[in-house]
């Protein structure tokens, strides 16, 4: 009995930030399977319209809408955020600043279990009468404000409830990250000695906390429209549908950086370790990200260029959108400069990190075409936009998470993942992803609207059907490539090669703790003497210098 209890408090209702972090990661990965399955279902329909889908059956038009909506919702809110920010953030942040745990461990445990309930709530909406919501992940009214339009009675309010719970959980995490970073750093850990990941996770939390409020206000009013038919967003009742778009994107654009920044942090830690070079322009990166954080609140209306907003409003938002690419261009150049001339070690983690930079650049560059009002009016709501944001989000969410998992796995579980299988996983994933998303740029330019259920019905799209087929076959390969990853993950947990404290010869504090670290993390309280990026210094026999080493 007592043994069982200790299992419960150790692995299930744990207040240890490391366990909470791993719980977030594993639940996020499970949700990725759901999101991936949905992608498989609707991509099958797009390539081979109206045929029976193996493992699903025939996809009806309304269920197609649900599948697309839930795919987007799950991948952004239940995969990207929990893995990148809550998962890696919870696991790494206290270790990296040299703290024993989070400032509020109980709140931390609560945040995971609220997240767990939110995931259950979302999944349950598949099984209510009329099924899950199908109004798109942006849940625009008037479609979403009036059940008469979508036929969705239960799915829509459940979606709002689930998202609200998820946000509550993220808010708790964010407060924990910021308070821990501000008040619990180890002796000598000044702000400008913190690893970039810690900076990024904190700025991301701040951006989230300042942007989420207006969306909650909009969601509350949307809920009132759904349940009490008030009409806040219905023009015939005196409401304003554009208002919701403003409230949504005031949050929606900063949200992109809530995902991007932790990813950039993870990539920074990995490329410095495996190129054996210090990061180029550490402070410049931090200032760039802070500037981008502020600018991210001033770009939202670029999502609404064709929504009927005043062109005099559109113009300044086009300008800020071009401006915000500057700090990220600086960051990207700093990363490339950090790789330049290094003694690169091509581990699986490093391969994923480099591929993240490459593929993200393509996503970033195509975003400029959407930010410029003139070209966006043509591109808007086509597959070009879909291809663009998948070229940003796929590297951010998946390539980065894989990089992080291969890199920190030895710390988390005390064992390595298999590198050969890791590299097989990497090459198939990185290449097949391009087969999935690259064709979508071209169908988009050809004029394929992004919410079309059956492209073969349109004369002008018939010649481009083969591109949909390539994309879908690419997805089959991409999903198949995850099988070796999943097997590698679970087998390595128990049978992998044992890892020492600091197997990658890295500088940050988490590598000074045992692998895996016990409750309380460090054996002796660390004292920090230097920044985390002293690699290949002159006049030293080893080419790394842990932060705890005196100068």
């Amino acid at each position, binding site marked *: 009995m007592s043994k069982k209890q200790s299992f419960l408090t150790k692995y299930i209702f744990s207040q240890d930030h490391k366990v909470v972090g791993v719980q977030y990661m594993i639940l996020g990965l499970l949700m990725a399977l759901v999101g991936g399955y949905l992608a498989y279902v609707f991509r099958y329909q797009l390539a081979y319209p109206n045929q029976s889908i193996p493992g699903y059956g025939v996809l009806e038009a309304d269920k197609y809408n649900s599948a697309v909506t839930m795919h987007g919702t799950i991948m952004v809110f239940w995969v990207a955020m929990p893995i990148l920010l809550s998962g890696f953030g919870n696991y790494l942040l206290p270790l990296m600043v040299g703290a024993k745990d989070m400032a509020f461990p109980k709140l931390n445990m609560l945040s995971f279990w609220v997240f767990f309930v939110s995931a259950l709530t979302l999944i349950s909406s598949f099984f209510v009468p009329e099924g899950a919501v199908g109004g798109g992940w942006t849940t625009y009214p008037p479609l979403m404000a009036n059940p008469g339009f979508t036929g969705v009675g239960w799915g829509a309010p459940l979606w709002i409830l689930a998202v609200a719970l998820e946000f509550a959980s993220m808010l708790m995490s964010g407060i924990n990250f*910021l308070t821990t970073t501000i008040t619990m750093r180890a002796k000598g850990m000044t702000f400008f000695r913190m690893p970039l990941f810690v900076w990024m996770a904190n700025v991301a939390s701040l951006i989230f906390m300042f942007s989420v409020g207006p969306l909650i206000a909009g969601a509350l009013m949307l809920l009132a429209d759904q349940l009490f038919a008030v009409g806040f967003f219905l023009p015939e009742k005196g409401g304003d549908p554009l208002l919701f778009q403003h409230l949504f994107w005031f949050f929606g654009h900063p949200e992109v950086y809530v995902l991007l920044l932790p990813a950039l942090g993870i990539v920074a830690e990995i490329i410095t370790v495996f190129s054996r070079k210090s990061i180029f322009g550490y402070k410049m990166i931090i200032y760039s990200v802070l500037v981008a954080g502020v600018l991210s609140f001033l770009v939202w209306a670029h999502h609404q260029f064709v929504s009927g907003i005043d062109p005099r409003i559109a113009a300044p938002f086009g300008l800020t959108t071009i401006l915000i690419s500057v700090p990220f261009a600086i960051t990207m150049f700093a990363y490339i400069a950090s790789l330049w001339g290094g003694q690169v070690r091509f581990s699986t983690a490093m391969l994923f990190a480099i591929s993240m930079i490459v593929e993200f650049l393509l996503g970033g560059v195509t975003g400029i075409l959407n930010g410029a009002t003139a070209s966006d009016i043509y591109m808007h709501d086509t597959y070009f936009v879909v291809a663009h944001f998948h070229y940003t989000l796929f590297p951010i969410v998946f390539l980065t998470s894989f990089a992080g998992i291969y890199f920190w796995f030895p710390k988390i579980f005390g064992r390595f993942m298999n590198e050969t299988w890791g590299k097989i996983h990497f090459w198939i994933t990185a290449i097949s992803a391009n087969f999935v998303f690259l064709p979508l740029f071209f169908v988009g330019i050809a004029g394929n609207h992004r919410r079309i259920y059956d492209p073969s019905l349109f004369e002008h799209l018939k010649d481009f059907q083969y591109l949909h087929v390539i994309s879908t076959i690419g997805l089959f390969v991409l999903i198949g490539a995850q099988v070796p990853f999943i097997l590698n993950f679970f087998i390595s947990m128990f049978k992998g090669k044992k890892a020492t404290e600091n197997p990658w010869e890295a500088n940050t504090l988490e590598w000074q703790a045992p692998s895996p670290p016990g409750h309380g993390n460090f054996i002796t309280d660390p004292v920090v003497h230097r920044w985390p990026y002293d690699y290949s210094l002159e006049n030293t026999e080893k080419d790394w210098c842990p932060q705890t080493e005196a100068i």
Partner: protein
Amino acid sequence: MENKSKTKLLALILFIASEIMFFAGLLSAYWVIRSQIPNWPPPGQPRYPLEVTAFNSIILFSSLATLWMAEKKLSLKRNYLSWLIVTVAAGSCFLIIQGVEWFRLIQQGMGLIGNVYGGLFYVVVGVHALHVAAGLSVLIYLLLKSLKMKTAMESDSLQLGKVYWAFVVLLWPFIYVGLYVI
């Protein structure tokens, strides 16, 4: 121990910051919709209750003053409980009067269905009332705890309660002026 309470205060301030953004979103939504409706209030709808709520606002503001007094007395190790009780009473009074007004408005035909004018009032004022209720529960919890323990409470917990209560009270003028007065 002193450090821990500073950390708690920091966490509370961060939470309040995100709450301020929430109310900023809510109030701007109110202004956007209102600016598009030509007649305010629409024909056949009652005006939002200006006078009673003015009186009620005074009650809410005095509750902040009494809470401030309670904190002051506690720091001087004098009897602070009566001030805390007055604060809780004033806060409850505010909520009760708000509730009575809601009933009156519903009776006068200010419904929710298909009524953006009514909906804005109930959502904005209702969300604020929920925040008042939350702040009040914290104060009542502190009061009961210190009555039960029969010793003076830690000034830190009272400080946290006061910061949140101050947020709830100082938010109110923005709602009162925006919805009732203008």
